[in-house]
């Protein structure tokens, strides 16, 4: 088990390495540079700036320089916001972004799993139809659509919640729901399917033959076994939250780190872009490891083998 854990964690390094190379190359394939603004800078000024930031070097040299700085924790200067370093930009926003992601994750799990269980237990009756309807809405509505609808309905019409900013708990509600919509639906569907499959297993019949109460059978035997496969989709769910968060941040004007992503591409802010990509890639890779390890841990067949 331990060796498995270690191997998986170590594996993140080459993955991130490859991600960084691919991103770097792609980034520099985009024509133009960080100095293309509304007003064109004179050639000489551009050349001097390029030299100053080392942008006139061959690409592999630039990469090595960047990598060297990166592993020391220096994310580089921001090309766009010249009075700040990427480190400070990230530091400012990362807390908010993480908070949004975590809240959406918790909401998705706390709502999705019970929905799936209820649907399975009330199979082909009203709890099933209700839960399935919610799931349908969840998978049919992209997060940006859900965000707009929530803003219009709850923010503007009903005025229950604010629709931009991040200044307090009431600001957290709409963005979290918008981000969690799709994951809730996925988790609910998957949990339901898993529960239905477990219901047909022989050991459920054994549990009933012991004369156990219904609740004991459901909780101890059905839910316990049904949740194990559900863990496997938590990795992709998390990846979804990571990549979806910056859209939500943009729509709701949340001061996280995500809203910089698209603009960074547009303005060719290389170091910011690299930092953001690495951050996201790390989060996804790390969570995949966590999920894999969790799965191996909670299934006794794998833990003790």
């Amino acid at each position: 088990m331990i060796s498995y854990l270690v191997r998986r964690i170590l594996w993140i390094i080459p993955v991130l390495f490859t991600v960084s190379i691919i991103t770097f190359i792609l980034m520099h394939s985009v024509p133009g540079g960080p100095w293309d603004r509304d007003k064109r800078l004179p050639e000489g000024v551009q050349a001097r700036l390029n030299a100053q930031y080392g942008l006139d070097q061959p690409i592999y040299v630039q990469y090595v320089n960047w990598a060297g700085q990166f592993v020391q924790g220096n994310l580089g200067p921001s090309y766009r916001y010249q009075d700040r370093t990427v480190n400070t930009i990230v530091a400012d926003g990362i807390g908010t972004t993480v908070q949004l992601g975590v809240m959406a994750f918790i909401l998705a799990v706390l709502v999705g799993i019970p929905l799936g269980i209820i649907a399975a237990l009330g199979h082909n009756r009203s709890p099933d139809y209700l839960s399935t309807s919610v799931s349908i809405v969840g998978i049919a509505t992209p997060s940006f659509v859900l965000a707009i609808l929530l803003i219009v309905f709850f923010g503007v019409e009903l005025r229950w919640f604010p629709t931009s900013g991040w200044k307090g708990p009431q600001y957290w509600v709409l963005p979290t729901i918008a981000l969690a919509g799709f994951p809730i639906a996925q988790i609910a569907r998957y949990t339901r399917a898993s529960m239905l499959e477990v219901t047909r297993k022989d050991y459920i019949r054994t549990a009933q033959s012991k004369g156990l109460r219904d609740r004991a059978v459901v909780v101890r035997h059905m839910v316990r076994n049904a949740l194990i496969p559900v863990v496997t989709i938590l990795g992709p769910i998390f990846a979804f939250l990571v990549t979806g968060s910056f859209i939500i941040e943009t729509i709701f004007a949340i001061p996280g780190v995500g809203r910089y992503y698209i603009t960074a591409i547009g303005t060719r802010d290389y170091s910011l872009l690299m930092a953001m990509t690495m951050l996201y890639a790390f989060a996804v890779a790390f969570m995949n490891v966590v999920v894999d390890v969790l799965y191996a841990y909670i299934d006794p067949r794998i833990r003790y083998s």
Partner: protein
Amino acid sequence: MERSEGDVSAADLPSIIDLAPDEARRAQTESVTASGTKRNADKLLEVRGLKTQFFTADGVIQAVDDVSFDVGYGETLGLVGESGCGKSVTALSIARLVPDPPGRIVAGQIMFDGIDVLKLSNEAMRKLRGKEIGFIFQDPLTSLNPTLTIGYQITEGIREHMRLSTRAARDRVVELLAKVGIPRPADRLKDYPHQFSGGMRQRVMIAIALSCDPKLILADEPTTALDVTIQAQILELIQKLSDEFGTAVLMITHDLGIAAGMCDRVNVMYAGRIVETGTVDTMFESPQMPYAWGLLDSLPRIDDIRGAKLRTIEGLPPLLIAPPDACRFGPRCRYARDICREDEPELTARAGEGHLARCWATEPGGWIS
């Protein structure tokens, strides 16, 4: 046999459940003891006219079609038949474990220890299960929860039905495991099913079935999924324990050898009906039904000529949707005559004591003697 004062009905149920504390106290001081000290009826199990059907998209499958038999206290009864004849469904019906939908018990009466099982509420039935009726299933790998320790899975039933302290329950589990032949039982309490071999897992199943000292054990092909060498051990174990505790056993099997070795009496089932019943001796000495002959004949014998073909019963059992009013074995029977195709025979008496068979040919006055 003693009778209790007056018949026992569902309303009297509390008095039966109250056995539990008595037994529990005894269990704490003595080792696992014999059950059945209080007998509430003549026979432990009386099944009358049981009909269990499955309602499917293709039609109504009459899996158990008017089945009647008895099991005495402490008796071992065999229920023999090929796959699909309804023997497993019979056992599930007794414990009311038939999956509903698509199955349902549509008719009949099941008296267990004087209690009308089919009239019990779900809650009352639940209390019977595990406590008075134990079940051993066929495949111990899939029948045990892979994510719970075996100690827990055995303790579950005990905690539910018997008021024992945690300590006492644990001790009882260790004792049970020892009784079923699992070495170092105390150490293995926290192991998971996948850490046991197939034979060991089945022993755990037996321990679970016996855990609350039931009066009846329903054993549904307990050795079919095991190696031949292990089979003998498991069967021996079941026999030994049932003798020791006076537990009745309904042994369901397709294997005549098992029935011959373990049972006091045998019922042969075919296509949802009982076609022959009797003591083991009479059944195997003079079976009265061509199906039984075919079954016995098909067993390879040690003095068979090598290279000769295996003897089989030609044909397949009929589908149980809309069975005809004719002998169900007729199409495969070499002795069949017109009457076999027109009218279904009843279970009628034969020479031996308690020997009944369902066959026109072997009836007194029939064409086979």
